[in-house]
């Protein structure tokens, strides 16, 4: 098997420009790798037109870094003519009739969509085990979870099946699997990337982002994903910038905060030790690091549960068996059709969350739960802003421990949320944040560092991440 896909994309680009290889070579290599690694269950659907699409690029001169490079897309981002299931039975025959804005951008650059990746059903979970299609496996240890909900994208990149993937992050769904599989995953600032065509879960939190092998590839991919979009009025108009511009710069004088909560007893010793090693290294490099107090971080999981379950119950009301997706065979009235379709079409985790969400939004409960959650959300955001007056970045671990065994959470409806305790606060405030690998534990399981930036300051995250990447 050829090894072109293991090269840095700048090197692959060079080979394409020199016509030493073709996009079809890359696609064939990716398809072969996916076939060989089938047991990882990283993909739900392979794009059966991708060889044809690659062939048409054979005679064209590459005009950008991503030309002809294979990419995997999380299966909650719609792709015209290519099945998009959200890892749910209710959409297992759904063929979108339009492209998400990010998919249009990827196609404009002539990247090749190799397939749609496995995930937690409707992105609800932190291990990808709620997928209707079965859980993806962690390429570094197949008895462990990939994390979630973008677990298939993480497995595809970490398993070296493709160099790049897209994920989505509502409460850690890019960072958590990136952490467990040892890759670079960034959740951009809310509003940075258009959500048009991303099947909504918690609309005020959802954000699409890049999952890659290196910091440079991550920043380069973000360059092409961003921008205001008339089709998503929560996307924000910002001056065009190059997210790679601070990569490799000196970090002397960089002011970094490490909240006490992030290194409290909820974090395992092996993870904490590794993070503190990075802290020592960064201090040696001249960064100024303070351990600080931050309020409200411990309330974030509760707030997250209220907001996402409420928003999900509203967003998922559209799956009613009328216009698209699965419909029950057995209904003689519309009301029965709705209830049976949703009962048969949704999995257990989704049903639980939309039932609680409907309860949260019903009558007076909306005030007790949802309105109050939005108020505390404002406090969390103000608390981040307060810290960012004195600091450029906030760091900590991504998760409290390394990737757990498959089937650990099956019978605990509560624990799946606690897995994301350290990453959820970021989504409340809409901030950008990354998981970057900082080594492994004694059993070879990856540990990541969580780097949180000011709103729209992704470039600063990449600056610190590139410095860490060189050493760890």
């Amino acid at each position, binding site marked *: 098997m050829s090894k072109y896909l293991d090269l840095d994309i700048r090197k692959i680009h060079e080979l394409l420009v020199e016509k030493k290889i073709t996009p079809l070579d890359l696609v064939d290599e990716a398809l072969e790798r996916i076939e060989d690694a089938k047991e990882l269950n990283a993909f739900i659907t392979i794009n059966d037109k991708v060889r044809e699409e690659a062939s048409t690029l054979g005679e064209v001169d590459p005009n950008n870094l991503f030309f002809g490079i294979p990419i995997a897309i999380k299966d909650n981002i719609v792709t015209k003519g290519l099945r998009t299931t959200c890892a749910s039975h209710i959409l297992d025959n759904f063929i979108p009739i339009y492209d998400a804005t990010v998919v249009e951008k990827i196609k404009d650059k002539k990247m090749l969509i190799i397939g749609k990746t496995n995930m937690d059903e409707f992105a609800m979970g932190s291990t990808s085990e709620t997928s209707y299609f079965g859980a993806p496996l962690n390429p570094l240890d197949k008895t462990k979870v990939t994390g979630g909900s973008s677990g298939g994208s993480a497995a595809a990149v970490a398993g070296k099946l493709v160099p790049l993937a897209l994920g989505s992050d509502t409460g850690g769904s890019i960072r958590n699997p990136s952490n467990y599989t040892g890759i670079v995953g960034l959740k951009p600032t809310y509003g940075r990337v258009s959500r048009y065509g991303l099947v909504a879960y918690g609309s*005020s939190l959802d954000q699409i982002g890049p999952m890659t092998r290196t910091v440079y590839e991550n920043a380069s991919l973000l360059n092409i994903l961003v921008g205001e979009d008339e089709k998503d009025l929560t996307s924000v108009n910002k001056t065009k910038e190059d997210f790679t511009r601070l990569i490799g710069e000196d970090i002397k004088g960089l002011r970094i905060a490490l909240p006490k909560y992030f290194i409290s007893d909820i974090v395992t010793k092996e993870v904490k030790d590794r993070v503190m090693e990075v802290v020592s290294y960064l201090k040696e490099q001249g960064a100024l690091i303070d351990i600080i107090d931050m309020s409200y971080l411990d309330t974030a999981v509760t707030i997250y549960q209220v907001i996402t379950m409420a928003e999900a119950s509203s967003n998922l009301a559209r799956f009613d068996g*009328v216009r698209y997706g699965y419909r029950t065979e057995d209904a003689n009235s519309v009301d029965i059709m709705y209830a049976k379709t949703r009962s048969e079409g949704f999995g257990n985790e989704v049903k639980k969350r939309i039932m609680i969400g409907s309860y949260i939004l019903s009558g007076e409960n909306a005030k007790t739960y949802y*309105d109050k959650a939005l*108020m505390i959300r404002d406090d969390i955001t103000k608390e981040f802003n307060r810290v960012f007056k004195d600091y450029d970045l906030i760091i900590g671990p991504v998760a409290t421990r390394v990737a757990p065994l498959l089937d650990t959470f099956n019978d605990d409806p509560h624990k799946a949320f606690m897995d994301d305790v350290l990453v959820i606060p970021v989504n409340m405030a809409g901030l950008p944040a990354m998981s970057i690998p900082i080594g492994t534990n004694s059993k070879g399981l990856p540990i990541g560092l969580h780097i949180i930036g000011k709103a729209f300051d992704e470039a600063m995250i990449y600056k610190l991440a590139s410095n860490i990447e060189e050493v760890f």
Partner: protein
Amino acid sequence: MDKLSREEVLHVAHLARISLTDEEIEKYRRDLKVLMDDIDKIKEVKDFDSEMMYTPINDNTRLREDVVGEMLSAKDVGVNAPKKNGSFIEVPVMINE
């Protein structure tokens, strides 16, 4: 361990338009109670601001200009409908004489 009553489970299932088997009702009596206890923790938070944050976007009142844009064809829109009759989407009878 505390559980919800059957009626409570059936109430939230109805709100979410989900039908449940007896077995599922039993399971959710426990599982939903765990989640309800989780969200009830919000009642313990005493010291908080009074401003509601619906979205991290500062300017959330922006609207598109009211002009005709690109549209999907009726044929395309119907392509995923589970049951069709010509160009119509078919559903069970809604009004009984």
